[in-house]
């Protein structure tokens, strides 16, 4: 799709019962997960991706980045708690849990989390009442998008 067309489709929607899709999933997973998270949803389009922003009822701002083909290539969150990471990371959740366990010994203490696998990058930091996180699949990033662009 051409950027102009995407921009013309820009939508601002407020729904009482939105949800979020899983990393690696497509837009159909938004509906599949709809009842899990409650909040308000905002959708907008940039040049090379569509952004779903969801404010959950317990105050977490979740962002999902969808490539033109409709696949979620990145997610981020910010809030007093984590969102449901099993749902948000979807098929990558098990890899996430295993990676944390593997690196705890090497870490020699506590601090922010950086997982840098070939097929999965996850960055989480903060503390109770103030968490920030981001996860993306490098291979699915649209051309020209850098990880730093995903806030």
């Amino acid at each position, binding site marked *: 799709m051409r950027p102009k067309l995407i921009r013309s489709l820009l939508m601002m929607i407020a729904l009482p019962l939105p949800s979020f899709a899983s990393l690696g999933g497509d837009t159909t997973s938004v509906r599949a997960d709809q009842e899990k998270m409650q909040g308000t949803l905002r959708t907008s389009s940039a040049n090379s991706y569509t952004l779903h922003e969801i404010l959950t009822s317990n105050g977490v701002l979740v962002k999902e980045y969808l490539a033109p083909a409709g696949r979620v290539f990145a997610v981020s969150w910010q809030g007093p708690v984590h969102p449901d990471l*099993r749902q948000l990371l979807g098929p990558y959740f098990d890899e996430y849990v295993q990676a944390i366990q593997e690196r705890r010994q090497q870490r020699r203490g506590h601090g922010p989390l950086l997982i840098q696998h070939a097929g999965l990058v996850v960055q989480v930091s903060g503390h109770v009442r103030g968490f920030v996180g981001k996860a993306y699949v490098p291979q699915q990033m649209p051309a020209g998008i850098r990880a730093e662009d995903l806030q």
Partner: protein
Amino acid sequence: MTLTRAQRLGYLALTGVLATAGCGGSGRSSSSSGGNDGSAGSNVLAITVNTGPNAGPPNNSPSINTAFASVTVCVPGSTSNCDTINDVLVDTGSSGLRILASAMTISLPPQTGAGGNPVVECLPFVDGFTWGPVQTADVSIGGEQAKNLPIQVIGSANFPSIPSSCSSNGPPKNDLKSLFANGILGVGPFAQDCGGACTISGASNAGFYYTCTSSGCSITTEALASQVENPVALFATDNNGVLVELPAVTGTETSVSGSLIFGIGTQSNNGLGSATVYTLDPSSGNLTTRFNNTTYQNAAFLDTGSNGIFFLDSTTTGIPVCKDMTSFYCPASTQNLSATNQGANGASGTFDFVVSNADMLASNSTTGVANGLAGPNSGTFDWGLPFFFGRKVFTAIEGRNTPGGTGPFWAY
């Protein structure tokens, strides 16, 4: 609430009379701790930074830059039915006392919620969560006492089944191997671990507290007074915050000793002096840090529980990440950097720090302390333990009055 000295003395005298008179029913313990009241240093808890309880077999995983202390937990009202727990992590990044069930020998009374069912907590951390029942204890910490304090007992065998809504935070931190400590002494800027967000019913609840039956656990509302509470907030005196004092560190050490001093401006040993007060965003407990061209707006915090200074990324800083310690920076030579911290009150100050090669700092497994330990971080500026080396850092509890104003704030 802060009492004047006269009010405090009056309160102490009153509780002494009640204890002597054997006035029952309140759950307060006998006067055995009274000998500490007013004696020099009763508001001081010794802390040690070393490789910690995980260093030896079977885990062989030494900590680095982790501050430990001892706390004593007793069955409420008892002075003999107690456990002294060593190697508890001192953490200004969380609030509330949590102890591994495996480190305890006594049984504490469980807190119960709806239907008389036990309350069990799921506390989220960056890389997982702790899960375990809320129980009540009389807790002695460095000569101060928090009576009838709700604490979390982590990894209790009585609640082995973790709800999926809790395990969605990542892997559990329910044992020594994952916690690197026998417990966490959370003395951060919040009075409770959750606050108002756990008192709301319905989908807006933050979801820390559950009531459990034989058929499972479900999220429950938890009143502020029942939540796992910063023990300092429940002390009879010196209850408006803490002061962390650690010596200056150059390079590496096996171990260093310091103090966690209770109260701010309440005794001769905890005055603010010339420290600058940086007030915090009341919801996140953060301040603002500027580093080069990056501003972490209400996204920076001082955290004794983090073992380095964590900020930005290799691309932006130009500092490579380590080959072995991949969560840390490994510059070819030590970098001298500075950042600016700014409080919600507008107070602002430059802070100089160093970043050294973490693979070299940590090459010896007996090293428990390292200045210059730093690493990349996305989204926050995490001022971990090296920030605290060689200075006095105050953490004021939300809503509590101090000579420097009302908390929450950090001052240094």
